[in-house]
């Protein structure tokens, strides 16, 4: 496999007006970092379908879970529950960038090995690794299957 692009987006680089109760900061940072990284490899308008692009999230950071529940007097609104699931950030990115390949949330383990397995088992030709530990920054790498 080959590393084709790497980007990092910090919290202060995100337009804060885009962040609201349904769209958290970390989600917006991830969206921006993935968009920039895909633009670098020439897929600004989308990944070709035959690449079956996938994404690996590397984090233990639950976007809003269960803090939402505590702050909201132990109630969760329907639209907020989506943010209460550990793979919400990469799930959001998979929708925004039409990543139809494997969507894998790793809390422990080597993301590069997991990406390599998807290539070797011929499940995808392009995988993203999205790493974040808190709301300060999100890092994204684009890896492609080396078919030479």
């Amino acid at each position: 496999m080959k590393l084709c692009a790497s980007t990092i987006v910090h919290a202060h680089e995100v337009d804060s007006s885009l962040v609201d109760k349904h769209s958290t900061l970390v989600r917006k940072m991830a969206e921006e970092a993935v968009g920039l990284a895909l633009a670098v490899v020439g897929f600004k308008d989308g990944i070709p379908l035959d690449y079956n692009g996938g994404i690996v999230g590397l984090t233990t950071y639950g976007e809003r879970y269960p803090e939402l529940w505590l702050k909201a007097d132990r109630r969760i609104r329907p639209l907020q529950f989506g943010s209460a699931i550990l793979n919400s950030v990469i799930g959001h990115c998979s929708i925004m960038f039409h990543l139809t390949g494997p969507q894998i949330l790793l809390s422990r383990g080597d993301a590069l090995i997991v990406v390599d397995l998807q290539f070797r088992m011929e499940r995808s030709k392009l995988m993203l690794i999205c790493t974040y530990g808190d709301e300060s920054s999100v890092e994204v790498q684009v890896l492609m299957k080396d078919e030479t």
Partner: protein
Amino acid sequence: MSARVGILGMGMITPGGRNVDETWQSLLDVKDTTCSRLCPDGVARTVHTIGNNEDLFFNATHAADAAYFDLECQFGQEVGHDTLCVGSSSDTVALRESSTVTPYLGLLLADRMAAYYDIENKYQFGNACASSSYAIATAMDLIRTGQSIIALAGGADEVTYSSMAGFSAWRVYGNRCLPFAADRHGLVLADGAAFLVLAPEDVGVPIAYLTGVGLASDATNMAAMSAGTVERVMEDAIREAEPDDSNRIDAIITHGTGTQSNDSAESEAIVNVFGGEMPLVCSYKHVLGHPQGASGAIGVVLAVQALLTQTLFPTIAKDKLDPDLEVSFKVTTEVTKADLAHILVLSHGSWGVYSALVVESA
């Protein structure tokens, strides 16, 4: 690349029983289509209280110990694992429900299990309700690519207050789980854990094999299920298992949560993939509830038990089936003896995570 991966041991704990035999018996014995150990608080429990992260570790190691014991019985001595792959969507949530510290910086289930079993390579997956299927798929891939010899793979999850609040907010939480029923009520959350010992097919004497994997993302929807993506993972898994005429799928253990969205999508996908030659279809969640991230691992253990006994458990009484689902006439309505060689296990999760695994008899 495809190769069979041997299953050398398995263990589980569910609201239906403390081990594989007890759970299997409760599935065969069920007289009513409701969770057999449904508590007044509306969840299917193992033995513990809500919101105690220690229960998760207890359940996980209880199930993994049983799988480990199978392996040791076979080899007559202690055998080490080199890889741990665990799936859990609720790990640390119970701790965080009683704390305002975020992000969580303590030990995860994989850390604790790796220390307990002295395993160096550890992976933990948080793919919502498909977490353990992704853990098993990764363990299979590591074995097939020669990066692991003996792997412990599975998942454990527990009911937490916030997951109950969340599913209730989505209005899919019922007081009874009735998959494929006309008067379905929605899902019932449950505790549960299941683990498998996996190895290359030529190591030891496997009780069954894992032969195919399908993993995909829907990429269109946060919560509603998509028949097209269920179809895609089923086809990928079957293709990877290299099926031919003698290698057909005989039964499907569906995700079968008892929601309208789940029943419709899985029914449509099964009809589209198999056409007129549909396999038998079942779900265990009317008895065991929905063990969230442990669903896939529990499904695989039940598939192995079905292959070993050539029996499928009932899903729902015949007169309760939803006539609008094309797959209805294939849903098991009683204990069913059948010629079973290949069983497909489906599990899916929020944010468009889908998976399918093919289990083959030894």
